[in-house]
């Protein structure tokens, strides 16, 4: 039972998700909120690949010398998720630029009063 390589990955994922969540909840500047959202997406992609790790396995490319391979299914899902994360971030930034031209400042007014 070999947990040695997987433990720092899980700790990094939990820390990235918590720090991103703190940034989204308690900051008021819209650009800072989008940066924290992008950090959370990086954390989620790392979690998906860490689940599919087989100890002492190799990359999922057919090879005559190895018998144990790493799980290829989460890698195929993450390959799509990274590109979609970039495109959604770009659309959000475009909306932010046109919001700045109308209102003149980057903080959102209204909403919940803490």
């Amino acid at each position, binding site marked *: 039972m070999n947990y040695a390589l997987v433990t720092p990955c899980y700790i990094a994922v939990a820390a990235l998700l918590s720090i991103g969540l703190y940034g989204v909840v308690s900051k008021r500047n819209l650009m800072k909120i989008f*940066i924290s959202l992008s950090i959370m997406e990086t954390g989620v992609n790392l979690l998906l690949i860490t689940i599919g790790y087989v100890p002492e396995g190799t990359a999922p490319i057919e090879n005559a010398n190895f018998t144990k391979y790493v799980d290829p299914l989460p890698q195929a899902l993450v390959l799509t998720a990274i590109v979609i994360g970039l495109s959604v971030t770009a659309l959000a930034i475009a909306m932010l*630029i046109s919001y700045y031209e109308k209102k003149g400042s*980057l903080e959102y007014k209204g909403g919940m009063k803490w």
Partner: protein
Amino acid sequence: MMLVIIAWIIAILAIVAAIYAVETKDLLSSAIAMGIASLVVSIMFLVLQAPDVAITEASIGAGLTMAVFVYAIGKTKRWEE
């Protein structure tokens, strides 16, 4: 054994970069710190034996996402207050 040491160093670097990105008041430094976190996570993908995902994350996370943020900061304000 070497891979375990590399994994711990990468985890600590990613956490420090994320904390700096959320706390600082300078938006340009925050965007650069987010790029550093993505790059370091891309090395972690290589330690976990996933070469396709490592190439994709390195070129998109550390290149294009940071370029989009830096162009947007140039059109709006740089300091948070």
